[in-house]
């Protein structure tokens, strides 16, 4: 790790010594999630969700591999094989419910993780790369979840595949052929089902790869923390193991209690009854909605109801359908430039009074409104609410954040993490650099940050 005081791995037995020379895997683990990784001592429970997300990915891969042993990706039999899993396979119902609810819990955890990143500005320098990789993981997750939802070949699966690939048909010129290419036909059928299964199986491993990059990037500057002040001295950190392994163990327990409560008592509460009806290409369900975790983005998609045209001429510049698609993808893609939009030198929302107001009274209600509207039928008042919320969503990231960064007067920051936790420490008293900690590694006291290897 990058801090000078990080503990060094010392192989104890002759075997581990030999292994350390040939393949220093234990050393890698030791430095990544063991005692060799110094972590700020003041992390709160919001920092549990990274490890939980990794755990969710493992749940999904394990249960998914099991389900793939019994599932057949053929439109004739796919629905039946899912029922075969539910009825005949030993513990098949448990595996399937764990996988289906596991997807929902994965998104709950990821949304908490993103929420943490947004409130504590974890995306700011020097952690931009961690954030960017995180957005990539999120996009991959959305694609994986969508394709997974198609596999049971119920009504929602079928019409979800139809509608979501239909989004691509909005792209000018290549749109229609692109949709046909994606589906391998003119409507979802065997070709689409098979490729979705193939990709749904592949993607989690791609995600796991990007997760490794995400963690690698994290270990360059080290973890952020609730004060947003960079680590300066040894007393600011504790070794990841046993301090955060024990805390993550407890967090995992709480997570598993909530997760199993859903799996065993309300396994279908987050699903849609229509997906227990076999796909019928001749009849669309009355009220099609995506899975709940897509609702905010679905609301943005549907918020654009009018064409962008030159007034009074009737010349359509961008049709509503394309506007919606641009809006939906744009709402996530703009996270890629977030580190350069919010340039306030203070990271933590705790020390940013103006940011906090807009965060709690602007962004969060907006997301809740988008969530509700995305799950509601496309009728008033939901359409108008989703339009207002969509407008604010973009305003918040593209306008409000950059302006706040310019005009806000942040609250005084503690000198160090240790001071933030324990109060002022005489020994650590050092000349203040001012109330704002820029996080600039070059100006830090000795011994705080060593260049990464």
């Amino acid at each position, binding site marked *: 790790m990058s801090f000078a005081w990080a*503990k060094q791995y010392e192989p104890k037995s002759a075997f581990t010594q030999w292994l350390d020379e040939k393949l220093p895997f234990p050393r890698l683990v030791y430095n990544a999630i063991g005692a060799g990784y110094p972590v700020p001592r003041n992390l709160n429970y919001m920092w549990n969700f990274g490890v939980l997300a990794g755990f969710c990915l493992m749940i999904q891969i394990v249960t998914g591999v099991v389900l793939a042993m019994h599932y057949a990706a053929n439109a004739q039999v796919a629905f039946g094989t899912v029922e*075969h899993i539910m009825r005949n396979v030993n513990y098949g119902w*448990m*595996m399937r419910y764990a996988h289906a609810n596991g997807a929902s819990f994965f998104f709950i955890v990821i949304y908490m993780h993103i929420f943490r990143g947004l409130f504590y500005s974890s995306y700011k320098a020097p952690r931009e790369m961690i954030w960017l990789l995180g957005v990539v993981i999120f996009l991959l997750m959305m694609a994986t979840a969508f394709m997974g939802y198609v596999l049971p070949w119920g009504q929602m699966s079928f019409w979800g595949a139809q509608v979501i690939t239909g989004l691509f048909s909005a792209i000018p010129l290549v749109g229609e052929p692109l949709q046909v290419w994606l589906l391998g036909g003119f409507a979802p059928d065997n070709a689409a089902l098979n490729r979705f299964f193939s990709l749904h199986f592949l993607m989690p491993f791609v995600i796991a790869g990007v997760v490794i990059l995400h963690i690698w990037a994290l270990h360059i500057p080290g973890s952020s923390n609730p004060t947003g002040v960079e680590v300066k001295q040894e007393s600011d950190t504790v070794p990841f193991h046993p301090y955060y392994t024990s805390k993550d163990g407890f967090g995992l327990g709480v997570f598993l209690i909530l997760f199993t409560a859903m799996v065993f008592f309300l396994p279908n509460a987050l699903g849609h009854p229509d997906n227990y009806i076999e796909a019928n290409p001749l009849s669309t369900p009355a009220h099609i909605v995506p899975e709940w975790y897509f609702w905010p983005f679905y609301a943005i998609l549907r918020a654009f109801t009018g064409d962008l045209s030159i007034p009074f001429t009737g010349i359509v510049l961008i049709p509503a359908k394309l506007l919606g698609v641009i809006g939906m993808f744009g709402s996530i893609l703009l996270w890629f430039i977030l580190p350069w939009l919010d340039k306030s030198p203070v990271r933590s929302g705790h020390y940013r009074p103006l940011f906090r107001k807009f965060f709690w009274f602007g962004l969060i209600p907006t997301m809740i409104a988008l969530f509700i509207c995305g799950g509601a039928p496309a009728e008033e008042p939901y359409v108008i609410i989703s339009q207002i919320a969509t407008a604010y969503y973009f305003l918040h990231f593209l306008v409000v954040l950059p302006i706040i960064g310019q005009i806000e007067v942040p609250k005084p920051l503690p000198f160090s993490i240790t001071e933030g936790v324990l109060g002022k420490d005489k020994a650590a008293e050092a000349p203040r650099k001012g109330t704002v900690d820029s996080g600039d590694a070059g100006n830090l006291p000795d011994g705080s940050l060593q260049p990464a290897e």
Partner: protein
Amino acid sequence: MAINTADTSALSTDDGVRRRDWIHIAALSTAGVGGATLLFPLVSQMAPSADVLAASSTDVDLSAIQAGQSIKTTFRKQPLFVKRLTPQEIAAAKADDATDMRDPATLASRTKEGHEDILITMGVCTHLGCVPLGAAEGENKGEFGGYFCPCHGSHYDVAGRIRKGPAPLNLMVPEYTFTSDTVVRVG
């Protein structure tokens, strides 16, 4: 590092385990038990599922089988040989009952009383599971006039007993009952 161990070292036992460590040990063992329990459904799901296990039976109509003829049918997704022996074959099989065989068995023990001419065996070579020849007309019946497995050269006699080659056991006789004089229910 940050832990002040000065006050706890007094509690150390000889083997270096501090008394208050019991909680960590308990927590880790509980997690271990949970993880191990999780293996059970993960392993169990690969075992035959309920529809495969559900006892299935096959009815075979014997009336159409002439003496010396065999038919191939399936029982639990595996080939099943049903053969009506000729009197000469019965005599030959009985004559061999006393010879030294790898898996000694008499013809009587491999057929039902009163139906000595009906031999029902699985069509699965006991060596490595190929289907032996000899059930259909014109196939190689091996040196003993019964069945011959072409994969590794196992020879079975008319009663399906292993006589030569690598197979360790006789062709398996499944459970069956005569539901009438001409119908057999296998399984």
